[in-house]
């Protein structure tokens, strides 16, 4: 496919061809969101009211933030299923009163906890070369086990006032939560696009073997990705805890799987070396919207799980087929 010159006459044709190709190569999330909205329009039009949409948007923020980390993991051919565990840990740190610190200090402790979990994951995944899925699931088991056991002794209590205030704040009609999400999204997008780190992430995703052979600092990049993912989980946890108002050991449990579904749906797959931040974000919105739709249709948890399963399986298979062709 070598084109030496492009004549002006074929320019428009080529532009159209490219535009069509781009549209077709858009992640499934976009089309799915549109379809869902159409379904909602006919079956539950109330969901499309600005008020409710804004609420759903706000509700999607924790998932949207967790997805930022998960998509980075997937792009370096790893996965982070410890997101739920991190949130449970954060929830216990912040609400149990076990640590006699002021609220800001507690938040810092939670952040440090996230960094520690990320480093632990990274150590097992890069240094001991253990499977990321198994490692992060095991880490979740450990964190939730300890947290729940501790909560038998000292149960989680009220959420820190800062967080409860934070999630209620609005600028005009726009909740501050959304602003925070948007800022994080923007920061990550720019950082990934413009930094050396982002280039390395692309390289590893496109061809891990080549990245290794050409001397890209593989281990460091993957480690940083896992720490970032855990940090995003901490932030997602902050918002969730603020929303609920009290600590709970069930908080954010489904975030790991949801984020995985969103990332796959958002067009990030193993080994493609592609995938933006926007696709997974739209997918996070789409998932949150679909859960609301399911609930409003009287379908609960089971339908949600089945949807997640189908999304992960079918999307992964479809992208895999697409790539192999």
């Amino acid at each position, binding site marked *: 496919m070598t084109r030496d010159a492009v004549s002006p006459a074929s320019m428009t044709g080529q532009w159209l061809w490219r535009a069509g190709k781009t549209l077709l190569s858009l992640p499934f999330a976009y089309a799915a969101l549109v379809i869902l909205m159409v379904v909602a329009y006919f079956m539950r039009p109330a969901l499309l009211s600005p008020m409710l949409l804004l609420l759903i948007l706000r509700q999607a923020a924790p998932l949207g933030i967790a997805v930022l980390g998960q998509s980075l993991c997937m792009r370096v051919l790893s996965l982070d299923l410890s997101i739920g565990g991190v949130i449970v840990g954060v929830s216990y740190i912040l609400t149990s009163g076990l640590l006699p610190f002021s609220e800001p200090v507690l938040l810092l402790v939670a952040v440090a906890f996230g960094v520690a979990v990320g480093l632990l994951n990274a150590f*097992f995944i890069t240094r001991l070369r253990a499977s990321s899925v198994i490692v992060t699931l095991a880490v979740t088991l450990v964190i939730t086990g300890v947290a*729940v056991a501790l909560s*038998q002794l000292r149960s989680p209590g009220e959420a820190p006032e800062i967080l409860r205030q934070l999630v209620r704040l609005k600028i005009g009609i726009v909740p501050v939560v959304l602003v925070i999400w948007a800022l994080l999204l923007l920061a990550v997008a720019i950082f990934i696009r413009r930094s050396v780190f982002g280039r390395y992430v692309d390289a590893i995703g496109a061809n891990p073997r080549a990245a290794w052979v050409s001397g890209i600092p593989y281990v460091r990049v993957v480690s940083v990705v896992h720490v970032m993912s855990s940090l995003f989980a901490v932030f997602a946890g902050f918002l969730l805890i603020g929303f609920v108002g009290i600590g709970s050991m069930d908080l954010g449990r489904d975030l790991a799987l949801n984020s995985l579904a969103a990332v796959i749906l958002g067009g990030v797959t*193993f080994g493609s070396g592609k995938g933006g931040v926007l696709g997974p974000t739209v997918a996070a919105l789409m998932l949150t919207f679909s859960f609301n739709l399911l609930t409003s249709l009287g379908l609960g948890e089971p339908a*949600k799980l089945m949807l997640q399963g189908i*999304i992960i*399986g079918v999307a992964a298979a479809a992208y895999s087929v697409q790539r192999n062709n």
Partner: protein
Amino acid sequence: MLDLARGSRRTGLSPIVLVLPVALFVLLYLSSGTFRSLENLANVNSQVAALMIASLGQGIVAISGGIDLSVGSVMSLTSAILVTADPAWGVPIALAMGAAVGLVNGFGVTLFKVHPLVMTLATMTFVQGVALLLHPVPGGEVPGYLRALAVSQVAGVPAAFFWCGAAILLAWHLLGRSRFGLRTYAVGANPVSAGRNGIAVTRLKVACFVLCSLSAVVAGIFLTARVGAGDATMGAPYSLDTVTAMALGGIQLAGGSGSVLGIVAGVLTLGLISNGMNLMGVSPFLRAAVTGALLLVAIGLQRREAIGA
């Protein structure tokens, strides 16, 4: 220490894999009077049986170079099916369901080339959803004959013992004596070379996943019958517990290495640790944490080539 942990090329067995369960048994036997009681020993056997049956299936998939995280959900759905379907049809339906899940996993991994972890995570989630849809609240009646098969005793030996024994014998025959077993080891070590030697790699891998799901169904039947009620989440811990048992039993998750003896040792180690903590009054939640830590250590000791998923 490291040398003790290094397993044989084919079986993955190392001294430490085999000594661990024996040492644990001796330790518990000497230190806890309750452990020594016949009731507790029978109890351990029952607790271990479901894990044993499911782990043998997981082991076959692991040796072929895959992994199956949907084991737990398949057990759960089995449980839901047994208490909702017509008593005569419960078992056949559950087995058919298991075969279907295995086929989906197998074809997803081979034909669609989805990573086994991602593929089985997807089926795990989906099947869990179906189980909850079918049987949202724990309870229900288990067919009487199943209950009898699971809890009765023959000459003082609890039924669980026979379930375990039959599963172990079958797995041992498959892996150690049959053509299928030898070829599974070959495919797990290097699918390309195995293919060059004329082995139908795709068919074999799919068969492994189907066997694994079917063993999960059997494990689910036993567990449901023993508990005496259906529970759509009863299998949830088993997905990771079977993987932990693999890792403790010296089965290389990269494929091509492992043995029935190793799986048995791994399951016993996990079961004894769990029972020991139970006797010591450790909170069940902390027990889960210890299982997780155990999994981390065991998996960390295995060496792989690739970094990532």
